[in-house]
Protein backbone atom coordinates (compact mmCIF):
# COMPACT_ATOMS: atom_id res chain seq x y z
CA UNK A 1 0.00 0.00 0.00
CA UNK A 2 2.92 2.29 0.72
CA UNK A 3 3.60 2.30 -2.99
CA UNK A 4 0.41 4.25 -3.58
CA UNK A 5 1.53 6.94 -1.19
CA UNK A 6 -1.31 6.45 1.30
CA UNK A 7 0.11 7.37 4.68
CA UNK A 8 -3.09 6.73 6.63
CA UNK A 9 -3.20 3.20 5.24
CA UNK A 10 0.42 2.73 6.23
CA UNK A 11 -0.42 3.85 9.76
CA UNK A 12 -3.37 1.48 9.92
CA UNK A 13 -1.13 -1.40 8.89
CA UNK A 14 0.92 -0.55 11.98
CA UNK A 15 -2.21 -0.86 14.12
CA UNK A 16 -3.01 2.85 14.27
CA UNK A 17 -6.56 4.07 14.70
CA UNK A 18 -7.77 7.65 14.86
CA UNK A 19 -10.31 8.44 17.56
CA UNK A 20 -11.54 6.05 20.21
CA UNK A 21 -15.24 5.54 20.77
CA UNK A 22 -15.17 5.73 24.55
CA UNK A 23 -18.32 7.59 25.65
CA UNK A 24 -17.66 10.83 27.48
CA UNK A 25 -18.10 10.48 31.24
CA UNK A 26 -20.74 12.79 32.66
CA UNK A 27 -18.29 14.14 35.24
CA UNK A 28 -15.60 15.18 32.79
CA UNK A 29 -15.54 18.49 30.98
CA UNK A 30 -13.79 17.99 27.67
CA UNK A 31 -11.47 20.65 26.28
CA UNK A 32 -12.86 22.39 23.20
CA UNK A 33 -11.64 24.97 20.76
CA UNK A 34 -13.92 27.75 19.53
CA UNK A 35 -14.39 30.36 16.81
CA UNK A 36 -12.74 30.00 13.43
CA UNK A 37 -13.55 31.69 10.14
CA UNK A 38 -12.34 31.73 6.54
CA UNK A 39 -13.26 34.21 3.83
CA UNK A 40 -12.24 34.92 0.30
CA UNK A 41 -10.68 38.31 -0.35
CA UNK A 42 -9.07 39.93 -3.38
CA UNK A 43 -5.84 37.87 -3.44
CA UNK A 44 -6.95 34.56 -1.96
CA UNK A 45 -8.32 33.23 1.29
CA UNK A 46 -7.98 34.58 4.81
CA UNK A 47 -8.29 32.09 7.67
CA UNK A 48 -8.50 33.25 11.27
CA UNK A 49 -9.11 31.77 14.69
CA UNK A 50 -9.24 33.02 18.26
CA UNK A 51 -6.78 31.63 20.79
CA UNK A 52 -9.00 30.26 23.55
CA UNK A 53 -9.51 26.62 24.54
CA UNK A 54 -12.13 25.88 27.19
CA UNK A 55 -13.27 22.92 29.27
CA UNK A 56 -16.78 23.63 30.49
CA UNK A 57 -16.61 26.97 32.27
CA UNK A 58 -12.88 26.90 32.62
CA UNK A 59 -10.46 28.57 30.26
CA UNK A 60 -7.84 25.90 29.59
CA UNK A 61 -5.49 27.95 27.49
CA UNK A 62 -5.35 31.38 25.91
CA UNK A 63 -2.62 30.86 23.33
CA UNK A 64 -4.07 28.04 21.28
CA UNK A 65 -3.22 28.03 17.58
CA UNK A 66 -6.31 26.81 15.75
CA UNK A 67 -5.18 27.66 12.23
CA UNK A 68 -2.68 24.96 11.40
CA UNK A 69 -0.51 24.72 8.30
CA UNK A 70 -0.78 21.44 6.42
CA UNK A 71 1.65 22.45 3.71
CA UNK A 72 2.76 25.60 1.91
CA UNK A 73 -0.65 26.06 0.29
CA UNK A 74 -3.24 24.72 2.70
CA UNK A 75 -4.40 25.06 6.27
CA UNK A 76 -6.90 23.37 8.52
CA UNK A 77 -8.65 25.54 11.07
CA UNK A 78 -10.02 23.53 13.95
CA UNK A 79 -13.11 23.77 16.14
CA UNK A 80 -14.07 21.04 18.55
CA UNK A 81 -11.92 18.71 20.61
CA UNK A 82 -8.31 19.84 20.16
CA UNK A 83 -6.80 16.47 21.07
CA UNK A 84 -8.46 14.85 18.06
CA UNK A 85 -8.06 17.88 15.82
CA UNK A 86 -4.31 18.18 16.39
CA UNK A 87 -3.93 14.49 15.73
CA UNK A 88 -5.84 14.86 12.45
CA UNK A 89 -3.63 17.75 11.44
CA UNK A 90 -0.53 15.68 12.15
CA UNK A 91 -1.88 12.80 10.08
CA UNK A 92 -2.78 15.14 7.21
CA UNK A 93 0.53 16.95 7.27
CA UNK A 94 2.42 13.68 7.07
CA UNK A 95 -0.01 12.29 4.47
CA UNK A 96 0.54 15.20 2.08
CA UNK A 97 4.30 15.04 2.49
CA UNK A 98 4.38 11.27 2.14
CA UNK A 99 2.30 11.43 -1.01
CA UNK A 100 4.47 14.11 -2.57
CA UNK A 101 7.71 12.36 -1.71
CA UNK A 102 6.64 8.89 -2.83
CA UNK A 103 4.65 9.83 -5.93
CA UNK A 104 6.91 12.75 -6.92
CA UNK A 105 3.94 15.05 -7.41
CA UNK A 106 1.70 17.06 -5.10
CA UNK A 107 -1.56 15.55 -3.95
CA UNK A 108 -4.36 17.27 -5.88
CA UNK A 109 -6.63 19.72 -4.11
CA UNK A 110 -9.49 17.26 -4.49
CA UNK A 111 -7.29 14.55 -3.00
CA UNK A 112 -6.56 16.72 0.02
CA UNK A 113 -10.28 17.30 0.57
CA UNK A 114 -10.93 13.59 0.46
CA UNK A 115 -8.16 12.98 2.97
CA UNK A 116 -9.88 15.32 5.45
CA UNK A 117 -13.27 13.63 4.90
CA UNK A 118 -11.77 10.20 5.34
CA UNK A 119 -10.25 11.09 8.70
CA UNK A 120 -13.53 12.57 9.94
CA UNK A 121 -15.37 9.48 8.79
CA UNK A 122 -12.94 7.21 10.65
CA UNK A 123 -13.60 9.38 13.69
CA UNK A 124 -17.40 9.19 13.64
CA UNK A 125 -17.68 6.86 16.65
CA UNK A 126 -15.58 9.20 18.80
CA UNK A 127 -17.47 12.23 17.46
CA UNK A 128 -20.82 10.74 18.45
CA UNK A 129 -19.52 9.50 21.80
CA UNK A 130 -18.64 13.10 22.59
CA UNK A 131 -14.92 12.59 23.11
CA UNK A 132 -13.70 13.56 19.67
CA UNK A 133 -16.09 15.84 17.78
CA UNK A 134 -14.23 18.09 15.35
CA UNK A 135 -15.78 20.43 12.75
CA UNK A 136 -12.86 21.87 10.78
CA UNK A 137 -12.47 24.34 7.94
CA UNK A 138 -10.05 23.41 5.19
CA UNK A 139 -8.70 26.19 3.00
CA UNK A 140 -6.09 26.11 0.30
CA UNK A 141 -4.98 27.13 -3.13
CA UNK A 142 -6.25 24.90 -5.94
CA UNK A 143 -3.68 25.10 -8.73
CA UNK A 144 -5.85 23.16 -11.18
CA UNK A 145 -8.63 25.74 -10.91
CA UNK A 146 -6.27 28.64 -10.29
CA UNK A 147 -8.13 29.90 -7.24
CA UNK A 148 -8.15 29.74 -3.46
CA UNK A 149 -10.97 27.72 -1.93
CA UNK A 150 -12.75 27.13 1.36
CA UNK A 151 -14.45 23.93 2.56
CA UNK A 152 -16.10 23.23 5.87
CA UNK A 153 -17.12 19.95 7.45
CA UNK A 154 -19.62 18.66 9.95
CA UNK A 155 -18.46 16.23 12.63
CA UNK A 156 -19.49 13.23 10.51
CA UNK A 157 -17.27 14.22 7.60
CA UNK A 158 -19.75 15.81 5.19
CA UNK A 159 -17.96 18.33 3.01
CA UNK A 160 -19.43 21.71 2.00
CA UNK A 161 -17.86 24.43 -0.06
CA UNK A 162 -17.81 27.90 1.46
CA UNK A 163 -18.18 29.88 -1.74
CA UNK A 164 -17.59 33.22 -0.05
CA UNK A 165 -16.86 32.37 3.55
CA UNK A 166 -17.19 29.66 6.19
CA UNK A 167 -17.38 29.67 9.97
CA UNK A 168 -17.22 27.01 12.67
CA UNK A 169 -17.10 26.70 16.46
CA UNK A 170 -19.28 27.92 19.30
CA UNK A 171 -18.92 31.62 18.41
CA UNK A 172 -19.78 31.04 14.78
CA UNK A 173 -23.57 31.67 14.86
CA UNK A 174 -22.86 35.26 15.92
CA UNK A 175 -20.50 36.06 13.08
CA UNK A 176 -22.24 34.04 10.41
CA UNK A 177 -25.06 36.58 10.35
CA UNK A 178 -22.64 39.47 10.30
CA UNK A 179 -20.70 37.98 7.42
CA UNK A 180 -23.88 37.58 5.43
CA UNK A 181 -24.91 41.15 6.18
CA UNK A 182 -21.51 42.67 5.39
CA UNK A 183 -21.08 40.64 2.23
CA UNK A 184 -24.56 41.51 0.91
CA UNK A 185 -25.21 45.07 2.08
CA UNK A 186 -21.81 46.28 3.23
CA UNK A 187 -19.96 48.84 1.14
CA UNK A 188 -18.37 46.15 -0.95
CA UNK A 189 -18.47 42.34 -1.07
CA UNK A 190 -15.79 40.45 0.85
CA UNK A 191 -14.28 39.12 -2.36
CA UNK A 192 -12.91 42.54 -3.36
CA UNK A 193 -11.41 43.49 0.01
CA UNK A 194 -7.70 44.19 0.18
CA UNK A 195 -5.47 42.12 2.46
CA UNK A 196 -5.59 44.86 5.10
CA UNK A 197 -9.37 45.37 4.91
CA UNK A 198 -9.94 41.63 5.14
CA UNK A 199 -7.69 41.41 8.20
CA UNK A 200 -9.62 44.25 9.86
CA UNK A 201 -12.90 42.41 9.19
CA UNK A 202 -11.47 39.24 10.72
CA UNK A 203 -10.41 41.10 13.88
CA UNK A 204 -13.82 42.76 14.19
CA UNK A 205 -15.66 39.48 13.65
CA UNK A 206 -13.65 37.63 16.28
CA UNK A 207 -14.19 40.52 18.69
CA UNK A 208 -17.95 40.19 18.10
CA UNK A 209 -17.82 36.44 18.63
CA UNK A 210 -16.02 36.97 21.94
CA UNK A 211 -18.63 39.53 22.97
CA UNK A 212 -21.46 36.99 22.83
CA UNK A 213 -19.65 33.68 23.36
CA UNK A 214 -17.71 33.17 26.58
CA UNK A 215 -15.73 30.35 25.01
CA UNK A 216 -14.21 32.62 22.37
CA UNK A 217 -11.07 34.55 23.28
CA UNK A 218 -11.32 37.32 20.70
CA UNK A 219 -8.61 39.94 21.06
CA UNK A 220 -6.94 40.43 24.40
CA UNK A 221 -5.35 43.80 23.85
CA UNK A 222 -4.07 44.22 27.41
CA UNK A 223 -2.23 40.92 27.34
CA UNK A 224 -1.03 41.56 23.79
CA UNK A 225 -2.81 38.40 22.58
CA UNK A 226 -4.11 38.51 19.04
CA UNK A 227 -5.96 35.92 16.97
CA UNK A 228 -4.08 33.83 14.45
CA UNK A 229 -4.64 35.21 10.94
CA UNK A 230 -3.21 33.45 7.90
CA UNK A 231 -3.43 34.35 4.23
CA UNK A 232 -3.28 31.86 1.38
CA UNK A 233 -2.51 33.05 -2.13
CA UNK A 234 -0.97 31.52 -5.23
CA UNK A 235 2.46 32.40 -3.81
CA UNK A 236 1.87 30.35 -0.68
CA UNK A 237 0.93 30.87 2.90
CA UNK A 238 1.76 33.74 5.19
CA UNK A 239 0.95 34.55 8.79
CA UNK A 240 -0.07 38.14 9.56
CA UNK A 241 2.45 39.29 12.20
CA UNK A 242 1.20 40.32 15.66
CA UNK A 243 2.62 43.82 15.17
CA UNK A 244 0.36 44.35 12.14
CA UNK A 245 -2.65 42.94 14.01
CA UNK A 246 -1.88 45.22 16.94
CA UNK A 247 -1.67 48.37 14.83
CA UNK A 248 -4.81 47.47 12.84
CA UNK A 249 -6.67 46.68 16.03
CA UNK A 250 -5.69 49.99 17.60
CA UNK A 251 -6.45 52.09 14.55
CA UNK A 252 -9.48 50.34 13.06
CA UNK A 253 -11.16 48.09 15.62
CA UNK A 254 -11.24 49.90 18.97
CA UNK A 255 -13.75 52.71 19.16
CA UNK A 256 -12.07 56.00 19.91
CA UNK A 257 -13.26 58.34 22.74
Amino acid at each position, binding site marked *: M*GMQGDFLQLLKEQGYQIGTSVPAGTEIEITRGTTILAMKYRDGVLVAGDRRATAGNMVMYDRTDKVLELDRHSVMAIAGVPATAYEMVRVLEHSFKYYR*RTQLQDLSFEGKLRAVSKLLKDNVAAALAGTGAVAPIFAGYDFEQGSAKIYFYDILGAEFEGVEYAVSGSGSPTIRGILHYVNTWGGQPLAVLSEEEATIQALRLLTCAAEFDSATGGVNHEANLYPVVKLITER*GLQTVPDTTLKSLFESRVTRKG
Partner: protein
Amino acid sequence: MYEEPYRWVEAIGNRRQYLDEQLKQGSPVVALSYADGALLLTVSRGTPKLYEIYDRIGLGGIGHPADLEKLRFSLLEMAHLEGFNRSPSDVTGARMMKLGLAPIIKQAFEEIFKAPFIVKILLAELSLKPGKDTFLTIDYDGTFEETSGCAVLAATKTIEARMVGYLKQAGHAPTLSLDAALALAAKAWAVGSLAQAAETETDRKDEKESNTPVAKEPEDAALLAHLRETLADKTLEGAVLERQAPGSSKYRVLTREELASLVPKSAPAST
Protein backbone atom coordinates in the same frame (compact mmCIF):
# COMPACT_ATOMS: atom_id res chain seq x y z
CA MET B 1 27.50 -26.21 -3.46
CA TYR B 2 27.73 -23.02 -1.44
CA GLU B 3 27.53 -24.88 1.87
CA GLU B 4 31.29 -25.07 2.04
CA PRO B 5 32.73 -21.85 3.50
CA TYR B 6 35.30 -21.23 0.79
CA ARG B 7 32.60 -21.55 -1.83
CA TRP B 8 30.65 -18.88 -0.03
CA VAL B 9 33.65 -16.55 0.01
CA GLU B 10 34.13 -17.26 -3.65
CA ALA B 11 30.49 -16.52 -4.37
CA ILE B 12 30.74 -13.21 -2.53
CA GLY B 13 33.81 -12.40 -4.58
CA ASN B 14 31.93 -13.12 -7.78
CA ARG B 15 29.13 -10.97 -6.55
CA ARG B 16 31.49 -8.03 -6.03
CA GLN B 17 32.79 -8.45 -9.55
CA TYR B 18 29.26 -8.55 -10.90
CA LEU B 19 28.20 -5.45 -8.98
CA ASP B 20 31.32 -3.50 -9.94
CA GLU B 21 30.57 -4.34 -13.53
CA GLN B 22 26.94 -3.24 -13.19
CA LEU B 23 27.83 0.08 -11.58
CA LYS B 24 30.55 0.97 -14.08
CA GLN B 25 28.19 3.01 -16.23
CA GLY B 26 26.55 4.84 -13.33
CA SER B 27 26.54 8.60 -13.38
CA PRO B 28 28.44 10.05 -10.38
CA VAL B 29 26.60 12.07 -7.72
CA VAL B 30 28.12 15.07 -5.95
CA ALA B 31 26.82 16.52 -2.68
CA LEU B 32 28.29 19.45 -0.82
CA SER B 33 27.53 22.14 1.73
CA TYR B 34 27.23 25.72 0.59
CA ALA B 35 26.36 28.96 2.34
CA ASP B 36 22.59 28.44 2.53
CA GLY B 37 22.39 24.66 2.81
CA ALA B 38 23.38 21.51 0.97
CA LEU B 39 23.48 20.85 -2.77
CA LEU B 40 23.04 17.57 -4.67
CA LEU B 41 24.04 17.32 -8.31
CA THR B 42 24.16 14.61 -10.96
CA VAL B 43 23.51 13.99 -14.62
CA SER B 44 20.72 11.60 -15.42
CA ARG B 45 19.11 10.03 -18.42
CA GLY B 46 15.35 9.66 -18.13
CA THR B 47 14.94 8.46 -14.55
CA PRO B 48 15.76 10.94 -11.83
CA LYS B 49 18.49 10.05 -9.36
CA LEU B 50 17.89 12.68 -6.68
CA TYR B 51 14.98 12.44 -4.27
CA GLU B 52 13.41 14.02 -1.22
CA ILE B 53 13.29 11.66 1.77
CA TYR B 54 12.22 13.84 4.66
CA ASP B 55 12.07 17.45 5.84
CA ARG B 56 15.84 17.87 5.94
CA ILE B 57 17.08 14.76 4.11
CA GLY B 58 17.80 14.32 0.41
CA LEU B 59 18.94 11.20 -1.42
CA GLY B 60 21.18 10.61 -4.42
CA GLY B 61 21.81 7.21 -5.92
CA ILE B 62 23.53 5.29 -8.66
CA GLY B 63 22.62 1.84 -9.84
CA HIS B 64 19.53 0.01 -10.96
CA PRO B 65 16.42 2.22 -10.93
CA ALA B 66 14.15 -0.55 -9.62
CA ASP B 67 16.46 -1.28 -6.67
CA LEU B 68 16.86 2.39 -5.93
CA GLU B 69 13.09 2.77 -5.97
CA LYS B 70 12.59 -0.12 -3.56
CA LEU B 71 15.09 1.25 -1.06
CA ARG B 72 13.76 4.77 -1.46
CA PHE B 73 10.28 3.55 -0.52
CA SER B 74 11.49 1.69 2.53
CA LEU B 75 13.36 4.82 3.66
CA LEU B 76 10.30 7.01 3.07
CA GLU B 77 8.11 4.62 5.00
CA MET B 78 10.49 4.47 7.92
CA ALA B 79 11.13 8.22 7.99
CA HIS B 80 7.44 9.17 7.91
CA LEU B 81 6.34 6.62 10.51
CA GLU B 82 9.15 7.71 12.79
CA GLY B 83 8.44 11.40 12.20
CA PHE B 84 4.76 10.85 12.94
CA ASN B 85 5.10 8.54 15.94
CA ARG B 86 7.92 10.50 17.52
CA SER B 87 8.98 13.81 16.06
CA PRO B 88 10.49 15.09 12.82
CA SER B 89 13.68 15.85 14.78
CA ASP B 90 14.07 12.15 15.47
CA VAL B 91 14.34 11.41 11.76
CA THR B 92 18.09 11.78 11.28
CA GLY B 93 20.32 10.78 8.39
CA ALA B 94 22.43 8.55 10.63
CA ARG B 95 19.40 6.60 11.91
CA MET B 96 17.98 6.26 8.42
CA MET B 97 21.30 4.88 7.24
CA LYS B 98 22.04 2.57 10.16
CA LEU B 99 18.52 1.23 10.70
CA GLY B 100 16.84 1.79 7.37
CA LEU B 101 19.41 1.03 4.69
CA ALA B 102 22.51 -0.76 5.94
CA PRO B 103 20.87 -3.95 7.31
CA ILE B 104 18.70 -4.46 4.22
CA ILE B 105 21.53 -3.86 1.76
CA LYS B 106 24.02 -6.03 3.66
CA GLN B 107 21.57 -8.91 4.00
CA ALA B 108 20.70 -8.83 0.31
CA PHE B 109 24.39 -8.71 -0.57
CA GLU B 110 25.26 -11.75 1.51
CA GLU B 111 22.26 -13.93 0.71
CA ILE B 112 23.86 -15.47 -2.31
CA PHE B 113 20.74 -17.24 -3.50
CA LYS B 114 18.95 -13.94 -3.84
CA ALA B 115 19.67 -10.93 -5.95
CA PRO B 116 21.68 -8.12 -4.35
CA PHE B 117 20.70 -4.47 -4.63
CA ILE B 118 22.62 -2.88 -7.47
CA VAL B 119 22.96 0.50 -5.78
CA LYS B 120 25.13 2.99 -4.02
CA ILE B 121 23.26 5.60 -2.03
CA LEU B 122 24.11 8.99 -0.59
CA LEU B 123 22.04 10.80 2.03
CA ALA B 124 22.51 14.52 2.61
CA GLU B 125 21.16 15.89 5.86
CA LEU B 126 20.71 19.60 6.43
CA SER B 127 21.77 20.75 9.89
CA LEU B 128 20.11 23.55 11.84
CA LYS B 129 23.34 25.55 11.90
CA PRO B 130 25.59 26.17 8.90
CA GLY B 131 28.71 24.05 8.53
CA LYS B 132 27.25 21.03 10.33
CA ASP B 133 25.49 19.26 7.46
CA THR B 134 25.99 15.51 7.39
CA PHE B 135 26.61 13.34 4.35
CA LEU B 136 26.28 9.56 4.50
CA THR B 137 27.17 7.11 1.78
CA ILE B 138 26.55 3.39 1.56
CA ASP B 139 28.12 0.85 -0.76
CA TYR B 140 26.37 -2.15 -2.32
CA ASP B 141 27.72 -4.43 0.44
CA GLY B 142 26.22 -2.37 3.24
CA THR B 143 29.33 -0.56 4.43
CA PHE B 144 28.56 3.05 5.15
CA GLU B 145 30.43 6.15 6.15
CA GLU B 146 29.58 9.57 7.44
CA THR B 147 31.36 12.75 6.40
CA SER B 148 30.84 16.47 6.62
CA GLY B 149 31.45 19.15 4.02
CA CYS B 150 30.99 16.99 0.96
CA ALA B 151 30.48 13.44 -0.29
CA VAL B 152 30.30 11.73 -3.66
CA LEU B 153 29.17 8.52 -5.32
CA ALA B 154 31.00 7.00 -8.28
CA ALA B 155 31.67 3.57 -9.78
CA THR B 156 34.73 2.81 -7.60
CA LYS B 157 36.26 3.93 -4.31
CA THR B 158 39.34 5.22 -6.14
CA ILE B 159 37.29 7.48 -8.35
CA GLU B 160 35.29 8.70 -5.38
CA ALA B 161 38.56 9.60 -3.63
CA ARG B 162 39.70 11.50 -6.72
CA MET B 163 36.46 13.47 -6.84
CA VAL B 164 36.66 14.40 -3.17
CA GLY B 165 40.34 15.27 -3.69
CA TYR B 166 39.34 17.53 -6.55
CA LEU B 167 36.67 19.27 -4.46
CA LYS B 168 39.16 19.95 -1.68
CA GLN B 169 41.91 21.11 -4.00
CA ALA B 170 39.53 23.33 -6.02
CA GLY B 171 38.68 25.16 -2.82
CA HIS B 172 35.37 23.76 -1.60
CA ALA B 173 34.22 25.63 1.51
CA PRO B 174 30.81 25.62 3.21
CA THR B 175 30.65 29.36 2.63
CA LEU B 176 30.35 29.16 -1.18
CA SER B 177 27.41 30.82 -2.89
CA LEU B 178 24.93 28.54 -4.66
CA ASP B 179 26.31 29.50 -8.08
CA ALA B 180 29.89 28.80 -7.05
CA ALA B 181 28.87 25.52 -5.39
CA LEU B 182 26.99 24.46 -8.53
CA ALA B 183 29.96 25.22 -10.78
CA LEU B 184 32.30 23.29 -8.49
CA ALA B 185 29.94 20.31 -8.17
CA ALA B 186 29.54 20.15 -11.95
CA LYS B 187 33.31 20.04 -12.43
CA ALA B 188 33.72 17.40 -9.74
CA TRP B 189 31.04 15.38 -11.53
CA ALA B 190 33.05 15.68 -14.76
CA VAL B 191 36.22 14.54 -12.96
CA GLY B 192 34.40 11.40 -11.84
CA SER B 193 32.72 10.78 -15.15
CA LEU B 194 35.97 11.16 -17.11
CA ALA B 195 37.79 8.90 -14.67
CA GLN B 196 35.08 6.24 -15.07
CA ALA B 197 35.31 6.51 -18.85
CA ALA B 198 39.10 6.17 -18.67
CA GLU B 199 38.80 3.13 -16.41
CA THR B 200 36.41 1.42 -18.79
CA GLU B 201 38.86 2.15 -21.58
CA THR B 202 41.73 0.67 -19.55
CA ASP B 203 39.70 -2.44 -18.85
CA ARG B 204 39.10 -2.88 -22.52
CA LYS B 205 42.78 -2.64 -23.35
CA ASP B 206 43.52 -4.81 -20.35
CA GLU B 207 46.42 -2.63 -19.33
CA LYS B 208 46.20 -2.93 -15.60
CA GLU B 209 49.58 -1.27 -15.02
CA SER B 210 48.41 2.05 -16.46
CA ASN B 211 45.87 2.26 -13.64
CA THR B 212 48.22 4.41 -11.53
CA PRO B 213 46.92 7.43 -9.62
CA VAL B 214 46.61 10.54 -11.72
CA ALA B 215 48.83 13.39 -10.57
CA LYS B 216 46.67 16.16 -11.92
CA GLU B 217 43.01 16.42 -12.83
CA PRO B 218 42.03 17.87 -16.23
CA GLU B 219 41.77 21.62 -16.70
CA ASP B 220 38.44 23.41 -16.25
CA ALA B 221 37.99 23.70 -20.01
CA ALA B 222 38.30 19.95 -20.50
CA LEU B 223 35.89 19.26 -17.63
CA LEU B 224 33.31 21.66 -19.03
CA ALA B 225 33.73 20.26 -22.52
CA HIS B 226 33.02 16.79 -21.15
CA LEU B 227 29.96 18.05 -19.29
CA ARG B 228 28.69 19.78 -22.42
CA GLU B 229 29.20 16.66 -24.47
CA THR B 230 27.34 14.51 -21.93
CA LEU B 231 24.46 16.93 -21.77
CA ALA B 232 23.74 16.48 -25.46
CA ASP B 233 21.60 13.44 -24.60
CA LYS B 234 21.34 13.61 -20.81
CA THR B 235 20.00 16.08 -18.29
CA LEU B 236 21.60 17.90 -15.44
CA GLU B 237 19.72 17.25 -12.23
CA GLY B 238 20.14 19.32 -9.09
CA ALA B 239 18.41 19.73 -5.74
CA VAL B 240 19.05 21.79 -2.65
CA LEU B 241 18.19 21.58 1.02
CA GLU B 242 17.75 25.22 1.97
CA ARG B 243 18.17 26.20 5.59
CA GLN B 244 16.01 29.34 5.25
CA ALA B 245 13.19 27.80 3.18
CA PRO B 246 9.74 28.57 4.63
CA GLY B 247 7.83 25.68 6.20
CA SER B 248 9.20 22.37 7.41
CA SER B 249 10.22 20.81 4.07
CA LYS B 250 13.60 22.15 3.06
CA TYR B 251 14.14 20.11 -0.12
CA ARG B 252 13.75 21.85 -3.47
CA VAL B 253 14.48 20.66 -6.99
CA LEU B 254 16.58 23.18 -8.91
CA THR B 255 14.88 24.59 -11.98
CA ARG B 256 16.20 24.30 -15.50
CA GLU B 257 16.97 28.04 -15.44
CA GLU B 258 19.05 27.73 -12.28
CA LEU B 259 21.07 24.92 -13.83
CA ALA B 260 21.37 26.57 -17.23
CA SER B 261 24.23 28.84 -16.15
CA LEU B 262 26.38 25.75 -15.67
CA VAL B 263 26.46 24.91 -19.31
CA PRO B 264 28.70 27.50 -20.97
CA LYS B 265 27.40 29.51 -23.87
CA SER B 266 29.29 27.64 -26.57
CA ALA B 267 27.03 24.66 -25.87
CA PRO B 268 24.55 23.71 -28.56
CA ALA B 269 21.31 25.49 -27.72
CA SER B 270 19.33 23.18 -25.51
CA THR B 271 16.40 24.85 -23.83
